[in-house]
């Protein structure tokens, strides 16, 4: 009788402890914590990468008129374009070099002389103060043929 009683107590205790332990184990599983926001302490400074130096070699240069590959019916024409303000602009046709200075808005008009037929034309824009430059190439054809 006593043996059975002791056995019952023992079994009961085991069951109780087991159940309690399981409950406690489940309760102790940590809840997902929010990611901590990185902060810098007042004494730290965010390191900055050295700023990449940007090439300033190139000026802008666009020929607006006449468009590339145009056929013109006059040997002497006006070349119009835009570049950086006050840049020196050079135009070389098969016959001559022409030089102009862009205005404060970067606009320029330059008189050029063309050869008969196809004219490969080199154009350059130079900023004398910064040494920035830009070059371009256009083709104009001088022909009086009726097209």
């Amino acid at each position, binding site marked *: 009788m006593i043996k059975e009683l002791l056995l019952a107590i023992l079994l009961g205790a085991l069951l109780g402890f087991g159940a309690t332990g399981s409950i406690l184990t489940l309760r102790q599983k940590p809840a997902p914590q929010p990611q901590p926001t990185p902060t810098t302490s007042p004494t730290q400074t965010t390191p900055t990468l050295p700023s990449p130096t940007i090439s300033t070699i190139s000026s802008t240069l666009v020929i607006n008129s006449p468009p*590339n590959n145009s056929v013109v019916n006059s040997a002497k024409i006006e070349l119009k374009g835009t570049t950086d303000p006050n840049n020196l602009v050079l135009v070389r046709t098969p016959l001559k070099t022409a030089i102009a200075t862009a205005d404060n808005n970067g606009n320029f008009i330059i008189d050029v002389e063309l050869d008969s037929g196809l004219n*490969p034309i080199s154009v350059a824009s130079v900023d004398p103060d910064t040494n920035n430059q830009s070059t371009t190439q256009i083709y104009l054809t001088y022909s009086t043929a009726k097209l």
Partner: protein
Amino acid sequence: MIPTTPPTLPPPSPTPTTINLDVQKIREAVQQKVREKLSQITAETQDDQPRAFFGAIIETSPAQITIDYQGSLRHLQISADTVYIDAKRNKAKIDTLKIGQTILALGRPATNDTLDTKRLVATDSQAAKPQFQIVFGKVSDTSQTTPVFTLIPFNNKDQQFQIKTTTTTEFFNRQKEKIDTTLTKGHRLIAVIKSTTSATFTALTLIDLDYSLLPAEASAKAGTPTKKP
């Protein structure tokens, strides 16, 4: 004991960094270049003003000739009105044109890459190549005995041009006034040059940007470094 979430600090307010500003500058510069190029291309194809294309013939048919124009194809529509001028400047039959021959085609654009051609002119392939260069750089050396000097371009300091002046070379200062022909080491020059059969270029036009300056000022100006990428 119920675990509590520690209070989170508010994130720092975003401030533009040096890198972001430089990236923005680069982005704006690229956008500007793209806009310029697009406006140039649009202007070329927007109207039906006469155009001329040159290139080597790669295909022929009775109604159309295809040429290679600077790496892209151009289709030349041929009609009864189309006139062909051969190398001797005589009118000739269009069916005498051959594959590989360089021609200059004049007409009005039908589409972006098609020309309603009125005139075909036999052309030397060399005639389409630019004969001149415009170089901007610094005089690194001058000769006491010959009219030859060395120019190092600002956009490529690993390169140098041997340039000779002739009696027809035009000299200008920064104000576009004609000046004498004295070249000074260290001065900045814009040179319009032409290739010759030798390694030396011939100067057609020279603009000395530092001509009016005193020697010390010229050296200081020429020594100003340009920013590199």
